[in-house]
């Protein structure tokens, strides 16, 4: 054992991937000839650019194009590359490694760069032929072979890798479905707005996307044939690509007894728990972080190379990462932290006509994150500003327009800015209307209002994003003669009014909150407590059965199907159809109140019983008991149908003319569960003495000898307003149909939170009468649409909750009577 001072030290590298390659390049530049290098690579080839496997799959590149280090590089640097030889053991005491082929090599310094393993979800059938991962060239070759035969491909995972695989396979002619567990694509890198645009772009390529879909099994006899989803559906598949994530490949290090958590634990100088062994790349865990992108690996490589070269430099301090999706034609960039808050300030730019969404997030005058879709030219500029933590307060006004815009100066007065534009400058992108066209229309036709300009030129009539610009053109053209109409925007997140938003949701077939916010140019990224519940309602009303209710956009009462009280407890009001009850029901109510020690039982002003003071955690138990006794939610909490009060009517009363109780029950059963812009209350009185107070209800029916008088637009709350008589019908069927048609017209037309009387005052009683009393076809159509939307809601929300829907709502995350002692470190 004579070790000579002049003898070169032995460096052994396990893994011939991107991190190892870059680290060695750095090392050779810093300390040429310092080591004898041996590399073991499990793959039977030289080092290639793994990132570029996506273009190889799509056919835009071939393997030769993506080689990083050809045979020449290994020869020049005197590297002994052992291709296709996997290291199976490390002997730390003896400082040797052993390969799968039995080769034993001694080391002075060992570098582990084993990358990651793709994660395979543990479902039955995951080992069937035809199920592949997406990690190396062999995987790509398998996919290309499958694609040559055509057929169906299912990609599990809607992240970066999954979408690149999907796009590649679609380009190769397969019919592709992406199955993604989360509600939005690339949820780690994108906010919901960018994810919405991405989904649209991917779907345009003929790729089907199933979000919120959980794969439970892979089916097939001898080879893959289909996958099975949790909701019971099966999707045909000749090829299944698993792209659900990666795991640091740390098995070798672990079996050698090195410290391993999620990845191989390294310090700031990339040393493992054994000072003779370092690790670099995706296999490591540094300050609790594992990385899956190349930029951090390159930074690590530099630090490790410096140490191996004997330099003492600053250590590695972790990385901020940025992401780009490599699908041709889809421009997407995200970097840093894009959470928002009081101390953060965001600048959003949306250009619906070009499909552009840009969002830059600032904290204390510095950019902390950016999401760009459709126009990513400035991605690297923003990323650089993030990394440098540069103070950008000076350019805040113009920041969102990008680097080219800087040096421009202060924000202009919008009217002056528009006045300065040339006549052919485009004002409305959606409809291609220039400033000149608008000015000509204003002067030639004597237009004075925004609505007139919209009607004549179409400017701002689509997405509405340019409304402010059109108003500025009006102001610039008419001068003082133009007084902006008293338009009331929905909230500070948009310039559009409620009516305009509703119209556009239907006209542009917008079917989700992110879709509305993007296409209509919302100025915030996730809305506010005022617009979110409104949009949620408008979408429910426009797309019954199709739109999925967003519980987090609902006021607590509607989310929990109970009214919150001043002390944080809740009240529970079961339905008593038409104000009727039975001895059995009353007994059950008594027993349930006793069993749950309900603090107060009260008759409401709506002819039913209220349990008050129920703690949240008790709600489901009480509902279950009420359900078991045949009672359901009374929706006393909803912007929806509350009560239908009745008087006894013809069945008992000496003055009664019709079966008011029967009609009341029928109305309540017909309308129960519907969501409306504000609460809706009905009453049916058996005669004009009106004992059920029908003339102060949203819809009131007064029975008369000859039939039924239908009244609408009453209220007896903050404002007391007697109803208006809408019309008279002869039969009970007609009465039901007219009432439902009124309710549907109100649902479709009213501004969120307007009671029925406000809507009626806005559109005019005559208009409503013409639509519903005079026009039979229209009445019928409204009625039919009402019935369609009722199909989606005729379920008892209490029963759904008792059965387990979002049950977590009713349970604390943790409940600790005694705090357990901290576990020993």
């Amino acid at each position: 054992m004579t070790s000579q001072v002049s003898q070169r030290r032995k460096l052994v590298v396990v893994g011939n991937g991107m991190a190892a390659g870059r680290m060695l390049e750095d090392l050779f530049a810093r300390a040429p000839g310092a080591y004898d290098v041996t590399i073991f690579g499990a793959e039977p080839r030289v080092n290639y650019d793994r990132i570029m496997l996506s273009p190889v799959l799509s056919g835009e590149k071939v393997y030769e194009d993506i080689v990083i280090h050809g045979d020449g590089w290994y020869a020049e640097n005197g590297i002994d590359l052992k291709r296709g030889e996997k290291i199976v053991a490390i002997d730390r005491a003896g400082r040797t490694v052993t390969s799968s082929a039995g080769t034993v090599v001694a080391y002075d310094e060992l570098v582990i760069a084993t990358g990651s393993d793709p994660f395979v979800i543990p479902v039955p059938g995951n080992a069937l032929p035809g199920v592949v991962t997406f990690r190396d060239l062999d995987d790509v070759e398998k996919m290309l072979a499958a694609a040559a035969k055509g057929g169906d491909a299912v990609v599990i995972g809607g992240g970066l890798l999954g979408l690149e695989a999907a796009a590649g396979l679609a380009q190769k002619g397969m019919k592709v479905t992406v199955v993604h567990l989360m509600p939005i694509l690339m949820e780690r890198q994108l906010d919901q707005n960018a994810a919405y645009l991405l989904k649209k772009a991917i779907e345009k390529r003929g790729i089907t996307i199933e979000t919120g879909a959980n794969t439970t099994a892979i089916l097939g006899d001898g080879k893959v044939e289909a996958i099975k989803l949790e909701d019971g559906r099966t999707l045909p598949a000749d090829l299944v690509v698993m792209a659900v994530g990666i795991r640091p490949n740390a098995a070798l290090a672990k079996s050698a007894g090195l410290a391993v958590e999620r990845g191989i634990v390294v310090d700031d100088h990339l040393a493992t728990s054994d000072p003779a062994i370092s690790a670099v790349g995706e296999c490591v865990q540094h300050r609790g972080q594992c990385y899956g992108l190349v930029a951090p690996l390159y930074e690590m490589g530099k630090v490790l190379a410096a140490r191996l070269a004997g330099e003492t430099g600053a250590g590695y301090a972790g990385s901020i990462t940025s992401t780009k999706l490599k699908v041709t034609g889809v421009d997407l960039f995200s970097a840093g932290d894009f959470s928002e808050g009081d101390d953060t300030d965001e600048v959003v730019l949306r250009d619906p006509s070009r499909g552009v969404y840009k969002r830059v997030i600032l904290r204390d005058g510095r950019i902390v994150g950016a999401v760009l879709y459709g126009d990513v030219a400035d991605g690297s500029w923003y990323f650089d500003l993030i990394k440098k933590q540069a103070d950008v307060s000076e350019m805040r006004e113009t920041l969102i327009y990008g680097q080219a815009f800087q040096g421009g100066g202060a924000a202009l007065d919008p009217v002056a800015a528009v006045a300065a534009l040339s006549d052919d400058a485009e004002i409305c992108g959606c409809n291609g209307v220039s400033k000149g066209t608008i000015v000509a229309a204003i002067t030639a036709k004597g237009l004075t209002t925004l609505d007139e300009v919209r009607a004549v030129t179409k400017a701002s009539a689509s997405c509405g994003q340019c409304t402010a610009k059109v108003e500025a053109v009006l102001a610039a053209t008419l001068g003082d003669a133009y007084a902006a109409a008293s338009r009331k925007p929905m909230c500070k997140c948009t310039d559009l009014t409620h009516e305009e938003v509703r119209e556009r949701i239907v006209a542009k077939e917008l079917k989700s909150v992110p879709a509305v916010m993007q296409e209509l140019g919302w100025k915030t990224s996730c809305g506010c407590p005022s617009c979110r519940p409104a949009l949620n309602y408008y979408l429910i009303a426009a797309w019954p059965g199709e739109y999925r209710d967003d519980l987090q956009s609902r006021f607590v009462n509607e989310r929990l199907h109970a009214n919150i009280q001043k002390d944080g407890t809740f009240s529970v009001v079961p339905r008593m159809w038409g104000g009727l009850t039975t001895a059995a029901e009353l007994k059950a109510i008594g027993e349930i109140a006793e069993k749950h020690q309900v603090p107060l039982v009260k008759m409401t002003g709506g002819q039913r019983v209220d349990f008050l003071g129920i703690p949240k955690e008790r709600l489901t138990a009480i509902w279950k008991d009420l359900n078991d006794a045949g009672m359901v939610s009374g929706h006393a909490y909803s912007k929806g149908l509350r009560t239908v009060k009745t008087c006894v009517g013809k069945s008992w009363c000496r003055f009664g003319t019709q079966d008011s109780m029967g009609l009341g029950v029928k109305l309540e059963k017909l309308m129960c569960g519907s969501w409306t812009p504000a609460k809706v209350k009905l009453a049916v009185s058996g005669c004009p003495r009106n004992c059920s107070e029908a003339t102060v209800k949203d819809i009131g029916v007064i029975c008369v000898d000859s039939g039924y008088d239908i009244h609408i637009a009453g209220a007896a709350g903050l404002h007391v307003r007697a109803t208006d008589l809408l019309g008279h019908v002869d039969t009970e069927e007609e009465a039901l149909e007219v009432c439902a048609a009124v309710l549907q017209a109100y649902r479709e037309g009213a501004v969120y939170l307007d009671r029925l009387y406000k809507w009626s005052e806005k559109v005019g009683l005559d208009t409503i009468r013409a639509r519903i009393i005079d026009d039979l076809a229209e009445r019928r159509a409204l009625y039919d649409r009402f019935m369609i939307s009722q199909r989606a809601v005729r379920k008892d929300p209490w029963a759904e909750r008792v059965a387990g829907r979002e049950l977590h709502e009713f349970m604390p995350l943790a409940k600790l009577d005694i705090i357990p002692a901290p576990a020993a470190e």
Partner: protein
Amino acid sequence: MTDAKQYWFDLGPLSAIPKRGARTVQVPRRDIAVFRTANDEVFALENRCPHKGGPLSEGIVHGRKVACPLHNWVIDLESGNATGADHGCARSFPIKIENERVFIDMGVAAAP
């Protein structure tokens, strides 16, 4: 030892809290609301509105704020301060996410 020692207690996976929503943690001295924003940040505040004690966990979460369900005060999730014209503060507690799990500092959360 009576000093406030850091003691990170595992509350379970982040996915147990709805996005733009909240869950509560009950400890002997108080209820704590744990919020999750649209961007997967978590915050912990005492579950009592500085106005009249409303349960903040039931409010609508938007951005890094929550609107109290009782009278609509808007509370900043990070500091617990009421925003706008209102004044008051809900106490906030140290909380963090690690490996997709949520941890609260019980040393502080359970202390008097």
